[in-house]
């Protein structure tokens, strides 16, 4: 299989879906002529024209709010919010508009809206307002699906499914994974929303990891393989969450680490830990260990960033800290 960057894989997904469905369009800031702030939509404006790849004013609420309205009226909007950090400006439009219409209006309508956004790259030292991982906020909103781009392969297959989904989906890319290459089939494909992937099988410890942490986890799993057999699971979608796959693995290994770049406090890693503890309680050797950001904004200075943001060594420490290994 050819290797592609995640950026390229996402671009392909967008291009294929725009070609496939006339009711789909892209909307966002600088996504058109400029090709996107991170070059993810490059070429699409030329290919599909300004009517289907729409540059907007700097207006996150209107981007998402208008997309909710367009979704109600027969379109399939694909909105881009440049950084997940800016989703706060469109929180109402997700939480009280797009996410609620189907239910409030009696169940018959659909809001086939996808919001693509980017979890921060704390490693790019863009500091506290451009570095957050914020999928946790949206997992708490009924009616909204939450999907992560963790590998190039996932990104393409899941984004296509997100776009085709008749529910609003917030799709989180990751700044530091755009350049990362991975195998992506030439042929068109989709991946189901709600199925986790066992990326590596193992017997001793389960590591559930997202985005950058997934790649660290895989590295660690290889490097400790002589001592410890680590199973690595990529949850892929957080809402719906494939609890079954996670629990099955937890029951097998009895030891679980969850690694996610968000804040731990009421964050996704804590929630995943909770679901595993709930369902696999009597099979666990110890409580689930969580790796994430501990109630701290992301600082600018590289040594500070490194201190705050988890990395491979934190995952390894968590694995090695598991009892009776």
């Amino acid at each position, binding site marked *: 299989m050819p290797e592609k960057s995640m950026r390229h894989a996402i671009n392909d997904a967008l291009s294929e879906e725009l070609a496939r469905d006339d009711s789909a369009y892209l909307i966002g800031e600088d996504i058109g002529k400029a090709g996107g702030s991170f070059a993810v939509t490059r070429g699409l404006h030329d290919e599909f024209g300004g009517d289907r790849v729409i540059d907007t004013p700097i207006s996150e609420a209107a981007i998402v709010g208008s997309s*909710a309205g367009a979704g109600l009226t027969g379109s399939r909007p694909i909105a881009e919010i440049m950084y997940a950090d800016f989703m706060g400006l469109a929180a109402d439009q997700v939480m009280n508009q797009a996410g609620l219409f189907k239910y409030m209006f*009696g169940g018959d309508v659909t809001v086939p809206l996808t919001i693509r956004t980017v979890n921060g790259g704390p490693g790019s030292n863009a500091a506290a307002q451009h570095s957050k991982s914020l999928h946790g906020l949206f997992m708490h909103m009924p009616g909204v699906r939450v999907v992560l781009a963790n590998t190039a392969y996932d990104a393409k297959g899941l984004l296509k499914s997100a776009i085709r989904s008749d529910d609003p989906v917030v799709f989180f890319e990751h700044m530091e994974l755009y350049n990362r290459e991975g195998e992506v089939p030439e042929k068109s494909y989709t991946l189901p929303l709600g199925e986790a992937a066992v990326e590596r099988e193992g017997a001793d410890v389960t590591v559930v990891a997202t985005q950058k942490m997934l790649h660290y986890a895989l590295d660690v799993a290889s490097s400790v393989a002589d001592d410890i057999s680590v199973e690595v699971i990529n949850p892929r979608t957080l809402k719906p969450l494939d609890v079954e796959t996670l629990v099955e693995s937890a029951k097998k290994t009895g030891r679980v680490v969850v690694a996610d770049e968000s804040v731990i406090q009421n964050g996704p890693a804590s929630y995943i830990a909770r679901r595993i503890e709930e369902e696999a309680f009597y099979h666990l050797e110890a409580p689930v260990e969580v790796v994430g950001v501990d109630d701290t904004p992301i600082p600018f200075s590289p040594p500070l960033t490194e201190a705050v943001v988890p990395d491979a060594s934190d995952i390894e420490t968590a694995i090695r800290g598991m009892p009776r290994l």
Partner: protein
Amino acid sequence: MPDEVAAHAEQLADQLQEMILIREFETRVSSLFEDNELPGFVHLCLGQEAVATGACWAIDDDDYITSTHRGHGHSIAKGLEPDRMMAELFGKETGYCGGKSGSMHIADVDQGMLGANGIVGAGPSLAAGAGLSIEQSDEDRVCLSFFGEGSMAEGVVHESMNLAGVQDLPVVFVCENNQYGEMTPAEDQHNVDGFEARGEVYDMPAETVDGMSVQDVYEATAEAVERARDGGGPSLLICETYRYHGHYEGDPTTYRTDEEVEQWRERDPIDTLEASLVEGGHIDEDEIEEMRAAARDRIDEAVQFARDSDYPDEEAAFEGVYTEEI
């Protein structure tokens, strides 16, 4: 003015009939609410009927509207049935939304009614989206967006009008200036003399309209709708009107004087239209009485329908969150 009336007498009579229906609906909701027959709370548009009727008269069945927490009039004017509306207010399964929405979120997307909305200022962004859909599919539909003058302060209303302006979207923004946002006068919330200047900000024609005159609202909207269908982009209409009741049913309205209410009531959109139709000989008192009786019957039926309907099954509570089981 008499000439105006003569020229449009038939349409005005129909508009009168509709306004009477809206008023009857609202009046009945008021007493049902007082009698504790309705759960939740309700915001009534008594006094504002001419805006809903006049504006919606200027659009077609397959056009869209977005509405507000004060949305019963808009719904009726967009063609929604009082019986299913009333059933929704009762929380019954026969309501437009199966009892899930109540007064504040009544919607019928098939009928182009994109929802009342409990979030002040949310409608205009949805309207911009409907405008984008229309552009995407190259239709010549339009979307009317109703919103209160209070919501003019919300950021997303500004963003949406700006987006509609730069994208030349087929949206008519219909601001209902009923002089208050909740219990606070409009003057304390904005430079009310600056509402029209928003037209220049967003590059769209803006006009202040007598919201107590169904004909004035109709004409201004029709012009804006025609421009929008012709690719001329959005418009802003500021309709000066008044709500006779409080912000919500039960509001003691201590923030305004009886004289003020009286002054506005003298310009009542229904009474004044009746008077000029009668004066011009286009309609007689009996016909008006028939209209009232018809409205009463229709609302009687609606109330009966609502009372007779069942509450939804409990299971329904967990259905309709997602398109597929999740």
